[in-house]
């Protein structure tokens, strides 16, 4: 996006040139924290087969953000508020938000349609540049983060990581063997509800980094890479978080030198890692046979 600086092949100098800009520093710190949270939470999302809950929450984030703007709230308030509210609703229904369900699909197509209405009301009542607001919610705007936003995003990302690591052990137990976990007296309902709130916060965070439509790229793809490479859950969590953070940092670096959208680089890098991991797991399987 800002190809003012050209690449010099001296890594240290390049890094210094890049981090001389405030917006790049903000993007690196906030993006790293968001990506770590997305990788960790995403690992459990895939493990618990709740991929389509995150898809649904991404749609809700768009509509919530646009609705928030319309009634004069901060974009973030709308995104966070709507995600957490819908996650709680999904949790209380006890459903897992399966994508194959026609009813859920129809509901969420309508939710997006509603977001589109909010967007067009907002655009027509504000200046034409307001139209870009919608694009940045759909496809992310990590380079446009204000210092305050970046600080909030970093803190929220770190807190999410800590909260997830704190419940990781019982959550794994509940995910892998719910019957035994119940008989041992683990509070399953509380744990799953708490996890859904963490998912909601992570989706709302990821929307700022890669956008509502590309949340999968940060939450699901790194987790799929981890699933391909290891069956050990703790190693898997580490791999998933590392892939997400690397995808964001490398994506930011590429976008700094090549003026293409960051979100594209992040999703493409994560997807590339996924293809490589697929190959690695194939080779492993044939080698062990």
């Amino acid at each position: 996006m800002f190809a003012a600086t050209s690449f010099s092949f001296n890594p240290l100098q390049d890094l210094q040139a890049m981090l001389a800009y405030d917006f790049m520093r903000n993007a690196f710190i906030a993006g790293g924290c968001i990506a770590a949270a997305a990788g960790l939470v995403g690992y459990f999302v895939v493990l618990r087969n709740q991929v389509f809950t995150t898809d649904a929450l991404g749609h809700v984030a768009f509509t919530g953000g646009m609705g928030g703007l319309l009634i004069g709230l901060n974009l973030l308030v709308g995104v966070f508020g709507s995600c957490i509210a819908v996650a709680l609703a999904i949790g209380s229904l006890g459903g897992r938000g399966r994508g194959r369900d026609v009813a859920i699909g129809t509901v969420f197509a309508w939710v997006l349609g509603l977001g589109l209405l909010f967007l067009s009301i907002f655009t027509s009542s504000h200046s034409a540049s307001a139209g870009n607001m919608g694009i940045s919610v759909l496809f992310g705007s990590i380079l446009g983060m204000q210092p305050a936003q970046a600080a909030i995003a970093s803190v929220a990302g770190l807190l999410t990581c800590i909260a997830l690591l704190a419940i990781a052990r019982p959550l794994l137990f509940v995910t892998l063997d719910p019957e035994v976990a119940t008989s041992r007296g683990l509070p399953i309902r509380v744990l799953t509800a708490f996890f859904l709130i963490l998912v909601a916060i992570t989706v709302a965070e990821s929307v700022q980094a890669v956008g509502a439509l590309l949340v999968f790229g940060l939450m699901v793809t790194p987790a799929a890479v981890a699933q391909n490479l290891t069956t050990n859950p703790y190693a898997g969590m580490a791999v998933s978080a590392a892939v997400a953070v690397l995808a964001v940092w490398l994506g930011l670096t590429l976008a700094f030198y090549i003026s293409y959208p960051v979100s594209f680089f992040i999703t493409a890098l994560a997807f590339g890692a996924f293809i490589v991991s697929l190959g690695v797991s194939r080779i492993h399987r044939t080698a062990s046979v």
Partner: protein
Amino acid sequence: MADSPSWDLLADLQLLLRFHFMQNALVVGTLVAVLAGAVGYFVVLRGQSFAAHMLSQVGFPGAAAAVLLHLPPVIGLAAFCTAAALGVGVIGRRIDAGNRMESAVVGSILAFSLGLGLLFFRLYAGSAQAVYAFLFGTILGISDRDVAATAVTAVVCLIALAAIARPLVFASVDPDVAEARGVPVRAISMAFLLLAALAVAVTVQIVGTLLIFALLVAPGACALQLTARPARGLALTVALSLLFTWTGLAVAYFTIYPVGFFITTIAFAAYVLIRIARAISRGNGASHRDAQAA
């Protein structure tokens, strides 16, 4: 759009058809509604609504690439959707949101293809409006070339669908028995997936990549709530699909708000009403039976 509707329906219709872009939108809308309805009935019957969702999102970079190359977007959409359908067919598994690893894979592909679409639009230096048109549909800017491409696609697909309709119903309702009777189930599923890809490609023009459910899945879902008979269900699906599209286009013309919002809202309202009506009639039936039993 400066026009306001009156209670005189004929005058309203004349207003609607006054502009060339609106004539094009109505022709394409009608073709799309018939094709999406017919294909959508089988999509719901076969439980492939998630595959339809996937095909439509893979179409987004296709549309963007076509714009970049100065081709009609529908050609790019058709190329990418068909390629995705072939990929799914070759892998040979049903796309199923219930499977953990498979949904993660599909989710990864979706994120990547939407990211690719974003890149193509940025390369084209397109405005936000161009992106919204493909994400959420539009009634503006449907060219005569688009009309011709849509008409050809729709006619070819409808003929092909009519040709395979009977074995398709059989293979969808009871694949095992169909296989035993010598129906080529795999070939038929493959052919249907390709038809679905083309239907998705033309439908995206009206409702956009993200709102495809409203025309491809909602009418079929409504019809299957109301009747189990294939011929009647198919007719009902096409009728509902036409109703959603025409009403949506007409309302969008007279307001400043986007067509995608109206079509999804009408489709959603119809689905909810039918579900409620079904629940009430089932409740009545149950209480009736209870009374008889007593």
